[in-house]
């Protein structure tokens, strides 16, 4: 793995402000046949540029729901969520998609790479959707694969990669359009300890390069690398530990 320049540098993004996400008393209630279930309750949270936040808590405490709300894929039932000063609830689906495309990167526990595409094509995909030219896409994908240490595997399909390699491709894909916020949901959940540590180190480097990082994890070792660790219980932030 090589240490290269910031992976965000070559794809322009909107003007930077230090505050990225400003969530005030956000809640998410799901309607269930047995009655409403509150997954996230009155959470207030601010995420600034370069933040490194880990969210921990028991299963079903609302960690992933909070992450999805921060990533604008789950609407809040109440409260206010501002991304870059924009009220997310007032944006159309198309505008929210564009916001995610340009400003937010997602890393999933199960990678969700497209099996019919090579590693390079998977990384190019978000740039293609963003209208980046073919040449710029190819250059950027090569840079990112180099950054995550997979330059030699660029033409390999996901089925030819190990779990750790797939997650590295997924991280490269999440960084493709130079997001200001990277959200990772149990990024080491499917990996062994050694591979998980490599992924954790890679995410650290991404954060050190300026991208705000929010990781939902059960893994204490991964959480301990964050500056802020939020402990959740019953949909609420029970405590926050700042390193």
């Amino acid at each position, binding site marked *: 793995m090589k240490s290269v320049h910031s992976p965000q540098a070559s794809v322009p993004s909107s003007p930077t402000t230090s505050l990225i996400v400003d969530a005030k008393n956000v809640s998410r209630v799901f309607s269930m046949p047995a009655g409403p279930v509150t997954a996230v309750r009155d959470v207030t949270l601010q995420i600034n540029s370069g933040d490194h936040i880990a969210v921990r808590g028991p299963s079903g405490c609302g960690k992933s729901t909070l992450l999805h709300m921060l990533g604008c*894929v789950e609407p809040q039932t109440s409260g206010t969520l501002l991304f870059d000063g924009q009220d997310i609830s007032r944006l159309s689906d198309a505008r929210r998609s564009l916001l995610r495309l340009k400003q937010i990167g997602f890393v999933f526990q199960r990678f969700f790479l497209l099996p019919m595409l090579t590693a390079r094509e998977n990384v190019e*995909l978000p740039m293609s959707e963003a209208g980046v030219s073919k040449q710029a896409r190819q250059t950027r994908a090569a840079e990112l694969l180099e950054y995550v240490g997979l330059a030699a595997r660029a033409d390999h399909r996901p089925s030819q990669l190990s779990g750790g390699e797939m997650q590295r491709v997924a991280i490269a894909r999440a960084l493709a359009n130079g997001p200001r916020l990277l959200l990772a949901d*149990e990024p080491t959940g499917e990996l062994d300890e050694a591979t998980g540590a490599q992924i954790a180190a890679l995410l650290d480097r991404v954060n050190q390069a300026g991208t705000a990082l929010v990781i939902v994890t059960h893994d204490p070792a991964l959480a301990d690398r964050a500056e802020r660790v939020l402990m959740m219980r019953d949909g609420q932030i029970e405590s926050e530990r700042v390193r």
Partner: protein
Amino acid sequence: MNAIGFAWRSLVRQPARAALGILGVAAVGALLFDMLLLSRGLIVSMQDLLDRGGWDVRVSAGELPGSGLRISDAVDTAEAISRLPSVQAALVMRAATARIDRASGQPLRASFQGATMRSADPAGSRLRAPWTILRGRDAEGADEVVVDEKIASESRLEPGSEITMRASCVGDLEALPATRLKVVGIAEFPFQTTNETTTGGTLDALKAACGGNVGTEADLILVTSTGDADETAAAIRTLLPEIRAATNTEVVGRLQQTGFTYFRQISSVLTTVTVSFAVLLITVLLTVSVNQRLGEIAALRALGFSRVRVVKDVLSESALIVGIGGLLSLPLGLLLASGLDRILKGMPGIPVALHFFVFEAQALAIHIALLMATAIIAALYPMRIVSTLPIAATLRDEVIG
């Protein structure tokens, strides 16, 4: 990667499923194409048959030519018709049953078509009886005939040969002396059916073969107008209100209302059924494909792919399956049509030259339009699935699953 490129990759990802879908569309598309060819095939083919030879108005005693009713004083009637200013020529047609003696075995049963022309217009003299001479020349004298290929080959006849014929112009029970006739040509008769054998000659030759027992009746008078068939038919109807005059187009129209309507109805029903099958087949394939990829689609949406984009991907996949299958359906459909045409033409009473399946650009255009509609309709449900996919819930379910 645009939607089509993405859809292509999705298709080749599961080649067996893609091949199944494409072959299914090709088979159903071939059937659909054939139904479209059938829906107008008989009409187009019949119009073509009627138009051959240049006779554009048909005069008969019944509603349709060939109804069995005969025109009385046919030669005088043809004479009167030929004197109309809009008429080039009128041809009296009379058919009889005949037996041709053979040196070996049973006599050959045949029909004998006698024809005589009446024309006041010099241009009308160029017109000939409605059969096509393949070898030799047309019959002109009272002792000359032309025969079809089947008679020629079975009785080993060539132009210059002689035959002995016993013909009956009023019924099969007549006992008539045999007549010697000279074969001067081998001809093709447009309305001859598969099992029929036909000879042709002048009305005088027919009279001679029937022992003079013909009377003044005829089955049909064929008329060639100077240009406007509708005007000519109207003029004949005014002149002779007791007989029926119809243009070729009107004859086809009447056939459409009677016998041909069944084929159109069958074709409409089968077209609807085949299109429905195609829609169901593709809907099922796409729905299964989309359901297998819900996690990936939700991930793409989370990464910023718009709702329109994922809908486009599904529509493109449908278009590719239908497009490739539709292309394959054309040669397959033409091959199938040729086989079906042969089978249907085996039915009794169908002229050899008539076709049930006739290629028309219009049928191809409708085929393409129906396939395009199929691709869109078949994709509606899977498009709805991806457009309303709850991103967060799907990602959560995929992890739990």
